[in-house]
């Protein structure tokens, strides 16, 4: 439709491609440098068991994947997170809606939401560990208690950002409460829900592993503790790297796809 706009001057294009190439070069150089540094440290500076060479860690990762341990423990942790986060999400959204729409409830609840935000996760992990003992219940409760407040805080912000005139107009045209919630509140809240998911999810990961380090009988955190107690740094780092790969995959690929899909009506996302 706009042929003039499409035909870009060639030099700018070439320059951009050159920049792109140099960007990748420096990036790869960064990886090579750090891995080389690691290798150098482990072969010349300190003992192998303190900084294991990258090849040893890779072999360890391969071992974990090949023996199927990875599925057992990631499955356990994921289940904890899924159950805990689902409950936290419902609870947090309800509290957030309540707080966003009524000054009274905001005053009633805000101190407690803030208190759970400021309390170190370790406290919840230890208290739930003491109450529920070994097993999966403690971590689930710890996940709920720590991540619901992230959802609530974001939903409150979202509700407050809903333009007043739109809700007034919807009401003036006789829409009922459900329709207003679905067609006015929900589209405005969607980005906030996603922020809440991202923050809440990263917190849920951390608290779930932490709780598993203390009381888990399976899961990534449990394996980290085992490696810590066996003083196996290679094993520990292998689990950390796997943890990272998995968290990155979930966040970057799964969550961001979903986000782009749901927010496709927004010009800045679609464009």
């Amino acid at each position, binding site marked *: 439709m706009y042929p003039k706009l499409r035909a870009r001057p060639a030099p700018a294009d070439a320059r951009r491609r050159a920049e792109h190439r140099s960007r990748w070069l420096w990036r790869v150089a960064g990886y090579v440098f750090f891995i080389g540094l690691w290798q150098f440290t482990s072969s010349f500076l300190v003992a192998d068991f303190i900084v294991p060479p990258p090849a040893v860690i890779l072999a360890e990762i391969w071992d974990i994947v090949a023996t199927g341990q990875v599925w057992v423990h990631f499955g356990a942790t994921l289940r904890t997170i899924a159950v805990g986060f689902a409950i936290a999400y419902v609870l947090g959204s309800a509290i957030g809606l309540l707080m966003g729409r009524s000054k009274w409830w905001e005053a009633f609840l805000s101190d407690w939401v803030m208190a759970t935000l400021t309390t170190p996760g370790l406290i919840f992990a230890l208290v739930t560990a003491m109450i529920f003992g070994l097993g999966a219940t403690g971590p689930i409760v710890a996940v709920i208690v720590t991540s619901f407040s992230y959802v609530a805080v974001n939903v*409150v*912000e979202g509700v407050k950002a809903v333009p007043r005139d739109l809700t007034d107009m919807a009401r003036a045209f006789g829409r009922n409460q459900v329709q207003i919630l679905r067609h006015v509140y929900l589209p405005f809240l969607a980005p906030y829900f996603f922020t809440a998911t991202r*923050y809440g999810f990263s917190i849920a990961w951390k608290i779930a592993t932490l709780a598993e380090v203390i009381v888990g009988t399976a899961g990534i955190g449990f394996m980290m503790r085992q490696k810590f107690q066996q003083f196996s740094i290679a094993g*520990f780092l292998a689990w950390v790297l796997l943890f990272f790969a998995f968290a*990155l995959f979930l966040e970057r690929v799964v969550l961001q796809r979903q986000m782009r899909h749901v927010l496709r009506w927004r010009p800045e996302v679609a464009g």
Partner: protein
Amino acid sequence: MRRVHDLLRHPRAARVLSWVGFVASWQLVVPLLPTELVPTPSEVAVFMWNELRMETVAPHTVYESFSLSFQRLGVGLFLAFAIGVPLGLLMGLRRRAEWFLHDFVVVGLAMPSLVWALVTGMWFGFGDLAPVMTVTLAAVTFVVINVAEGVRNVPKDLLDMSGAYGVSRYATIRHVIFPSLMPFFFAALRYGLANAWKGLVLAEVWASTEGAGWVIKFWYDAHRSQGIVGYALFFIIVAIFIERIVFGRLSGWVFRWRPSDSRQAPEPTVADPDKSAPAAVPGRQ
């Protein structure tokens, strides 16, 4: 009757009600629970009072433990800034440095402080070094990313103008670059501190024999949950103190050149380098 109703509808009444209701229901429900491991508020209050009067079963008083933890925090944060500021300046000024380092900084930002605590515990053993290194590692990437962002955000037109008016190099740094970097330093300090503090506590739990985190572990092993909850409250009080008094005063002083309604430290913009949706970032995690 009407006045009571109006009074109850006031938000302040809601706040008071929620506190009273929470504490009362906690106190009343706990004896009904099948477990004896949940403390009542009065037990926690008695515990905290005893701790403050330095009557404790733990080997160190609350003052000693917290001051030791603060020393570790201070040394670790100093190291984090000493390493992070040059790297951040480099990343903000040179794009190649940014491409070189970016991915590793992001990994550092996302790394749970638990991992740092356990790794440094294995590397440095029991003692001061593991907690201090945890603090440094947990805070340094926040410093790097915020300083880099701050350098990129120095207003270009102000720099051009000071160049045109022949302002000296020192004066440019002091009066243009420095003030515009300040909000980002604050963001770095805030987020770095929050993350480092959590890491410090974890490192003390697993790789130390003293300090505030270790005392929590002590109460956990002693099966005294009022100790854990009491220490949690100490933590929250300290956190609120730092947030309100220290940061509030400091930002009021540092930003005294601003119009008086925006003297609070502005919300840090880059807690998350690739934020794509509007966010309500909670101050502490």
